């Protein structure tokens, strides 16, 4: 398996799209804080009252920018799966997946190698892009409106861990579609259909939970849907601490769905005819 993983990572890094992805990640990380800073300057010029501006400044922090970009609903989070899917699918389009099977590698190890490569690429790019955005944002904005403490640092680390778990779920889903469709275009379409559906559902449940429903069961169900929705990642980075209940609501379904998609992918790949 290690040989396959080494080969998959090697070919991903040698791919031109990898360089393009690096450039895009760097550019987005610089441009996003600059744009917000520009907006702020423009607002200072145009706004008559300083009240609205202060509100805007309060929400415009490096922390909010970091969590805004470190999400699959953000600009880079939308682009990244497309690139990763195209890079990984080249094994199917070039027919090089056949080399692995004909030389005696098991389908399980080939699948896990693809999944791990997908996870390493996705997690590394998401994290690098978000951290770079945070660094650039700190030039123009405060980290948060209150002074930074060790508690905030712990919260930041926990949030990064949770977001990386989201990445693993996304990678399990993407790898499943890649091996099931054997085609980058179709895999990307399927991935976006699922992610958009989940985003729409997330938006609806978030709206419904805003005026707290009188029924406690309904409230809990909606809260569960909100926390469990990986594509909204609404619990990550939105506060200053995590409640055990919301952590459980988030962790259990994410881990369960990751396991389900990995299993489904393995079963699909074991039975798949490769031409």
């Amino acid at each position, binding site marked *: 398996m290690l*040989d*396959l993983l*080494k*080969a998959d990572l*090697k*070919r991903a890094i*040698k*791919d*031109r799209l990898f360089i393009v992805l690096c450039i895009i990640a760097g550019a987005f990380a610089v441009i996003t804080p600059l744009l917000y800073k520009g907006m702020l300057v423009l607002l200072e010029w145009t706004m008559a009252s300083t009240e609205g501006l202060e509100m805007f400044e309060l929400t415009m922090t490096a922390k909010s920018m970091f969590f805004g970009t470190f999400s699959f609903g953000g600009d880079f989070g939308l682009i990244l799966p497309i690139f990763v899917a195209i890079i990984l699918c*080249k094994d199917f389009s*070039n*027919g*090089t*997946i*056949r*080399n*692995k*099977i*004909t*030389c*005696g*590698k*098991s389908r399980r190890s080939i699948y896990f190698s693809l999944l791990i490569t997908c996870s390493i690429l996705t997690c590394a790019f998401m994290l690098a892009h978000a951290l770079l955005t945070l660094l650039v944002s700190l030039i123009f904005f405060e980290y948060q409106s209150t002074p930074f403490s060790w508690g905030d640092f712990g919260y930041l680390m926990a949030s990064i861990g949770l977001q990386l778990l989201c990445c693993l779920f996304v990678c399990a889903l993407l790898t499943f579609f890649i091996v099931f469709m054997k085609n980058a275009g179709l895999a990307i379409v399927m991935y976006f259909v699922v992610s958009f559906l989940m985003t729409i559902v997330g938006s609806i449940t978030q709206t419904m939970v805003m005026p707290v429903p009188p029924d406690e069961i309904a409230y809990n169900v909606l809260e569960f849907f909100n926390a469990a929705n990986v594509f909204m990642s609404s619990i990550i980075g939105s506060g200053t601490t995590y409640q055990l209940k919301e952590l459980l609501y988030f962790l259990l379904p994410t881990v369960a769905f990751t396991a389900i998609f990995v299993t489904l992918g393995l079963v699909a790949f074991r*039975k798949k*005819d*490769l*031409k």
Partner: protein
Amino acid sequence: MSYLLETVSLSKHYKKQWVLKDVNMHVAKGDIYGFVGENGSGKTTVIRLVTGLIAANEGHVSLFGVRDDDPKILESRKKVGAIVESPSIYLNMSAADNLRMQCTILGIKQNVEEKVKNVLSEVGLLEQYESKKNVANFSLGMRQRLGIGMALLGEPEFIILDEPMNGLDPAGIVEIRELILRLNGEKQITFLISSHILSELALVATKYGIISKGKIVKEITTDELRRECRPSVIINAKDKEALRALVGEVVPLEDCFMTAHGVRVYGEVNLNELFSRIINAGILMESVYCNKPSIEDYYLSLIGGGNHA
């Protein structure tokens, strides 16, 4: 006899349509097995089944004595090199990088550069060793050679080549043919080569498997095939019984076969003597044909696509 590759009642269907039915194939160690069949006859499907790319609906494959439902089949596959349909190569990499990548997949860690160089030299692509030219810019023939090189990297005991001569120029065909013969002779590597160009296969194969419409029509050795395709003389006469009796006296029995209107005589026969004796016996000959069927004629007679004399 134990075979290096054996398929037993191998069958495969797609959406209720059988593309292979009861395929029984036998490849012994040291064979160069020519797998012949028309386009769409099922050659590539058999190769995909043998290499584990697809699963059979019925029957099984045995590779080095291990059945494909045994987990040890993966160990057997490590002794196989294969090109299935088209060479499987990374188009955005150079030839040497493709081979290095295959070394990584195969877990080859020692003497990688030497191996890459040797393989490139063996398939006539040594000039590509230091070249950065992407394989995407290679001709079909160059890709085919590189594909063969990839199959050679793991030092396999058994190489499966699906239409290896496709896209090669005449010089390339000769080189690949010589490479196959050399590897078979020097390293005792067994080959399974599929092709629909019989004349090309005839120059290397030691055994043939003829497939048509998803069924193996015949397995035949080169010697048997030669015997089937040796020249013959067909003599038809009114009194065919007398003719048969007389020819039977002159020609050894194993070379003499009855036909509907006379006899067919194989082998080296003194025709002058034979005809003199027929005339002297007063047998009136209606017609005499000389027949030297080609391998193609024989093949067509088997698959029912032509008139074999």
